[in-house]
């Protein structure tokens, strides 16, 4: 029950007490944030444009949080934000960034992330993935120098399936878009459904090119008529091109989930508990918009670095990585419990809010999904099934 303070903490406290709030041991830390911009696919509705500063606003807020702490500890923070245009030279941007720092936050596609991690000049670096949700990056394709702040697609789809199990909505149907990310999303739903003993019966591909704002009410009932009976309808539409037109237009009166309706999120403006209201209002004040998934991931990435720097006093990638993967690291992420890293694949453990456009519905892991270590590991692939070996010492 009683724990003596660590040598470092005692030392720091003693030093501060005598020196006051000024610098104690100056730690200069430089982080680069690289965003490979993508051309968003066209969508039927432009009600929810992708913010120009998506992710960047998050990392900037996290920097401000870190700087406030750093002021009391003599830390000096430098953040470089680099945007690479869709056809730009990401590799050249990486070369420049790695020449300046070992700490990189990357918002990039999976193949680019892997290529970055495998560069010789990144061998001693620490990369934070805030843009690629592919489960394979946390599994067979994991890398020892990559930590994943963004949850995997599987963590999100597992969260949704836990909710269905809790509500006993065991029989599902699914509509899948035709883009590559839609198919990947559908695969995640299918795998999670199997994991939690649910069945996806009828499955249809959305291939319309009509403008649904005018005729959703006419087309969707017919389109969903032959799905048969089911408890809930999953929509796999990563860009939310057509998903928003499905609710209330289905042939049978059934709830809609996935890309529309009940949606698993990394973060959402409707999350308010556990002090989240404060984070939301700090973000709103800074950026005049609501905080989104990638903003949260970028915020959490730089906050994780800040937390590890504060506790270790070292800006070195190796020391930060060791601390983050160790037993003492914990990030207060406004999700109701401390966030920690999975030691076997570098994924940040985190609760997944299940929301609709107006409110939080539930937060996964849901009650009753048990785990010998932490219920958070009921989301996504767990250690015994993991094919990641890069983290074994």
């Amino acid at each position, binding site marked *: 029950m*009683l724990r003596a303070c660590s040598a470092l903490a005692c030392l720091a406290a003693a030093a501060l007490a005598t020196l006051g709030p000024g610098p104690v041991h100056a730690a200069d830390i430089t982080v680069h944030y690289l965003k490979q911009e993508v051309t968003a696919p066209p969508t039927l509705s432009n009600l929810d444009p992708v913010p120009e500063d998506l992710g960047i606003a998050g990392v900037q807020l996290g920097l401000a949080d870190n700087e406030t702490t750093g002021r009391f500890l003599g830390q000096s923070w430098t953040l470089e934000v680099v945007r690479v245009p869709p056809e730009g030279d990401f590799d050249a941007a990486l070369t420049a960034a790695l020449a300046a720092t070992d700490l990189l936050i990357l918002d990039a596609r999976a193949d680019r992330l892997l290529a970055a991690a495998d560069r010789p000049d990144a061998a001693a670096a620490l990369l934070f993935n805030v843009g690629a949700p592919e489960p394979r990056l946390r599994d067979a394709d994991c890398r020892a120098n990559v930590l994943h702040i963004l949850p995997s697609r599987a963590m999100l789809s597992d969260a949704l399936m836990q909710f269905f199990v809790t509500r006993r909505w065991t029989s599902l149907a699914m509509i899948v878009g035709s883009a590559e990310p839609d198919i990947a999303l559908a695969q995640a739903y299918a795998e999670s459904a199997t994991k939690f003993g649910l069945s996806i019966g009828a499955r249809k591909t959305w291939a319309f090119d009509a403008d649904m704002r005018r005729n959703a009410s006419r087309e969707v009932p017919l389109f969903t008529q032959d799905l048969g009976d089911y408890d809930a309808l999953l929509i796999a539409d990563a860009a939310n091109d057509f998903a928003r037109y499905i609710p209330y237009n289905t042939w049978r009166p059934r709830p809609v989930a996935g890309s529309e309706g009940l949606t698993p999120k990394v973060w959402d403006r409707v999350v308010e508990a556990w002090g989240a209201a404060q984070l939301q209002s700090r973000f709103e004040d800074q950026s005049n918009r609501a905080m989104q998934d990638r903003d949260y991931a970028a915020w959490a990435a730089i906050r994780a670095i800040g937390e590890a720097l504060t506790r270790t006093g070292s800006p070195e990638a190796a020391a930060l990585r060791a601390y983050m993967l160790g037993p003492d690291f914990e990030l207060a992420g406004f999700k109701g419990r401390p966030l920690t890293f999975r030691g076997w694949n570098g994924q940040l453990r985190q609760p997944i809010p299940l929301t609709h456009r107006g409110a939080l519905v539930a937060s996964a892991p849901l009650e009753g999904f048990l785990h010998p270590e932490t219920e958070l590991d009921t989301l996504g692939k767990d250690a015994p099934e993991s094919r990641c070996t890069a983290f074994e010492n």
Partner: protein
Amino acid sequence: MRLSPILTALLLAATPLAVTQAAADEIWVTNEKDDTISVIDINSLEVIRTIPTGERPRGITFSKDYSVVYICASDSDAVQVMDPETGEILHDLPSGEDPEQFVLHPDNRHLYIANEDDAITTVVDTVSRTVVAQIDVGIEPEGMAVSPDGKIAITTSETTNMAHWIDTETQKLFANTLVDSRPRHAEFVKDGTELWVSSEIGGTITVFDVATQTEKAKISFELRNMHPDRVQPVGFEFTTGDTHAFVALGPSNHVAVVNAETYAVEDYILVGRRVWHMDFNRVRSLLFTTNGVSGDVTVIDVADRKALKSIKVGRFPWGAAFRPTN
């Protein structure tokens, strides 16, 4: 009178002379999502009044003579001053933005207020109704304490994870000490020789030696059948003589009893859901805890360490303050 025989016996045993005096003492509870205060009659253990406040009331404290009550109306960006007799708001104090918690200096005049959204501690003179000082602290300041001699004020910052030590003479920081994640509440104990700070996400209480501002102990909590992530210490208060601390453990729905000499946890008491803060009756024989999610107050028998009763209050009760009525 609807007291159980046990409770009546207890009250009589604990306060043989004060029982008639204490007959109408009250516990005032702020209801964060109802914008009200529920007033509990300590004798009948029932809500006898519900008083409207500003938006999102959280911290609540009475002046030393109990003539006024101060309420942090966080979303109204004001500290409200209320006449406890009439429930009338007398005036607002300039508080800075989003005041969450505060503490009244022993001089009964200066309020030290944590401005959660602004990373600032505001010092307000309640007589002249002016801001005396604003002190930059860490992100999301919350826990506030003043030493019994009035010389040191403490602000804890939830995201910066520090206790900030303020010299009340100069209104400047003289030390900043790290604690575990998300510090929520601070109290000076044992005549101001120790400072206790609870860390909600860290799951610990750090005990500082005040003279040197160094950590002298860390208390952690273990509940059977409860994952450590859910054991989140927030508010705490001390029994007579500072012998034991009662610590609210948030979403684990328990209050821990800590021996303040050995720092050992002696007991856990089941209360309502997401327990936040608490206060005692006059003789500290009964403890009243606010349970945010279940919307009630649990009454704990301090000697027996058992919950006696739940009292339904408003939505998301947060702060609690004792008010003697004579």
